[in-house]
């Protein structure tokens, strides 16, 4: 942290960081020394140590595994710990703003409780009985799809970038957001699960609000193909259940529970 002032080759990072809370605020400029390999989060820490000890920022692992340090860097939703400073032009002023979809607590920290409330509404895993020999048999090809969803680090960048709630606050009560479509998909495609969440998806979770414009997929730091692999497959299952009389008639083409 503080030793950044000693090392380095004289290069500097010019940052424009949002300071303030729900009552108001402004972008403030800071300049700190730049070391090789630094990421935006390192620079924020330098600002904390050298200029603004109370600069509020959320972070934990600094290795892209915990999903705490979400922010908007030059207007793009990103993990600060995975945004390297050398991806910007030398001398460029880099803007760091808090994520815009959730209420601001202070500086770069927002109140993400929306997500934790949505998580509580999801019908939990409900496994079928064990095999006759007392084991659980699942095969790799059956769980590959779901393991992709389990990579989610809950950084909520997909929730942040989703225009359904980002630009239309009034939709928040009726829309769960991409993170939770991924979660529901992981349960619906789980080879052991027996519950049915399609009605939930269509109604409470508001799957129909998604217009598949794919920003969630674009910002996902885990490169989960949120739209193609979870949202659209869920939309298709909802179609089978609610909008496709022929498929319902045939039955055979539907999901496990129809």
């Amino acid at each position, binding site marked *: 942290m503080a030793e950044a002032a000693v090392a380095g080759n004289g290069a500097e990072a010019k940052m424009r960081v949002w300071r303030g809370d729900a009552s108001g605020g402004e972008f403030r400029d800071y300049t700190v020394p730049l070391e090789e390999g630094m990421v935006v989060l390192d620079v924020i820490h330098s600002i904390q140590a050298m200029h603004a000890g109370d600069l509020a920022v959320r972070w934990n692992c600094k290795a892209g595994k915990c999903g705490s340090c979400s922010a*908007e860097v*030059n207007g793009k939703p990103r993990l600060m710990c995975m945004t390297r400073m050398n991806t910007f032009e030398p001398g460029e002023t880099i803007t760091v703003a808090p994520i815009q979809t*959730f209420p*601001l607590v202070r500086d770069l920290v927002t109140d993400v409780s929306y997500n934790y409330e949505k998580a509580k509404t999801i019908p939990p895993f409900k496994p079928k009985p064990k095999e006759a020999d007392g084991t659980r048999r699942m095969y790799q090809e059956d769980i590959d799809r779901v393991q992709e969803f389990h990579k989610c680090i809950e950084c909520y960048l997909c929730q942040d*970038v989703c225009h359904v709630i980002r630009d239309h606050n009034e939709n928040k009560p009726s829309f769960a957001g991409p993170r939770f479509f991924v979660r529901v998909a992981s349960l619906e495609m789980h080879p052991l699960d027996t519950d049915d969440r399609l009605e939930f998806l269509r109604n409470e979770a508001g799957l*129909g*609000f998604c217009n598949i414009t794919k920003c969630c997929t674009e910002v996902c730091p885990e490169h989960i193909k949120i739209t193609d692999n979870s949202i659209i497959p869920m939309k*298709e299952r909802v179609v089978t259940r609610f*909008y496709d009389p022929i498929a319902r008639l045939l039955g055979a083409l539907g*999901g496990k529970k129809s």
Partner: protein
Amino acid sequence: MSTVAIDKRTLRQDTWWLEPMLVVLGLGCFAIYSTWAALQNGNYYAAPYLSPFYSPCLAINCEHVSVPLFGSWYNWSPAILILWIPGGFRLTCYYYRKAYYRSFFWSPPACAVRDAASGYSGETRFPFILQNIHRYFFWASLPILAFLWWDAIIAFNFGGSFGLGLGTLVLITNAALLSLYSFSCHSCRHLCGGGLNSFKAAPGRYKTWGIVTKLNEKHMQIAWTSLVWVGLTDVYVRLLAHGVIQDLRFI
């Protein structure tokens, strides 16, 4: 508590507007050309090539009848009889939805750029709730594909003798690209196996699903390539029919 008080449409500094602009240009040009071509009601057949905009040609007064379903009372352009199928298929396609919601509706124009409209109900209400019938268009496009392949095959038949012209290759490529487009579609992927929760129990469908999944990853690229190609195919046949150019014969 309120969200951060930044009153800009976006803080992005890159050329986020470029992509929606190109899409408007691309889709706009195609829409204008295809409407014009579909309303021409002529110059869509240059033996042995039938323009895909008019295939299958279902009216008795067609320049080249595929199946005579409609009698001589029908004297509008026969393209109208069938173009609603590929049109509807593309209109409800998951990729094109993304493309036009972004570029035409600005909903949103790009990621982390504010929506143009203040209200939003997505695909929960009419008319957009109709997007859910996408798979019916997929089914309906299958017979069309069959006709396009048939057209490609008879494009080897030059007045009873076997031949190969540039037009033949154009038609084959067209049928191939449109097939790739149809079979890489998200609905097709679902129907092949996306609805299953255990692949182990259905190895055949797992394999098919796997192939379609691979194709599906390229759905956007295939969508654009096939769109451009089908337009060019019509242009080629139309120019032949007008006599502006001559078909290049290899055999």
